[in-house]
């Protein structure tokens, strides 16, 4: 089907690639269909584009790209609400805020978008882990990671 997107104009997408966010993204109720788009040279960054509203598209990144120790600490019932039994089955995306100085971009690790890749159901979940806030400076975290030499993966096989 053809959809209008903010970054790429009108494009053709497969119906099966549409992600269903039943409860909507927090603050944007009633908008339940999204699609993941990437663009040239974007590296790990992608667009989480609303199918129903052209001008609504979030920049997203997997937390694993800059926090390989990231864990998804949410209740079993939140996972079950999108048909997941275990966090390791999930695709996780953090929403990015890009300020005027893009090197200060921040990712929300406290409220990740969690996707069931098999059913394409998704939900923005709120982490119970007090380590994670809504604003993690991506480049700073990468620098800290490089400085500490800690490239190990998290214990829950997420990353």
């Amino acid at each position, binding site marked *: 089907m053809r959809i209008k997107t903010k970054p790429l104009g009108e494009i053709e997408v497969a119906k099966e690639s549409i992600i269903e966010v039943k409860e909507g993204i927090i603050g944007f109720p009633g908008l339940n269909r999204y699609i993941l788009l990437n663009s040239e040279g*974007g590296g790990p960054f992608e667009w989480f584009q609303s199918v129903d509203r052209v001008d609504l598209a979030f920049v997203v990144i997997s937390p694993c790209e800059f926090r390989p120790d990231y864990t998804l600490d949410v209740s079993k019932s939140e996972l079950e609400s999108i048909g997941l039994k275990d966090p390791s089955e999930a695709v996780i995306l953090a929403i990015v805020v890009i300020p*005027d100085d893009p090197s200060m971009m921040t990712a929300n690790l406290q409220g990740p978008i969690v996707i069931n890749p098999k059913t394409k159901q998704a939900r923005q979940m709120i982490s119970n882990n007090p380590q994670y806030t809504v*604003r993690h400076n991506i480049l700073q975290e990468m620098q800290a990671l490089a400085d500490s030499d800690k490239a190990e993966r998290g214990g829950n096989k997420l990353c």
Partner: protein
Amino acid sequence: MLVLARKRDQSIMIGDEVEVIVVDVHGDQVKLGITAPRQIPVHRKEVYEEIQRENIRAAAETKHDKLSVLGDLFKSKKK
């Protein structure tokens, strides 16, 4: 807004599927237990509001909406 007074162990039903129980009262802190169907998210209001605000910030127009700008910054740190 409906205001109801409850004592410890008393409960409120919201519709057929949501229950709020006063689990404990200690000083000025009330511990509440909530039972709800799994599709209904239940969270502390201030956390919910913070996430909502941040989502709105993220969705707002930005000078830099070319992913390649971000991709380059990321690559430069990745060495």
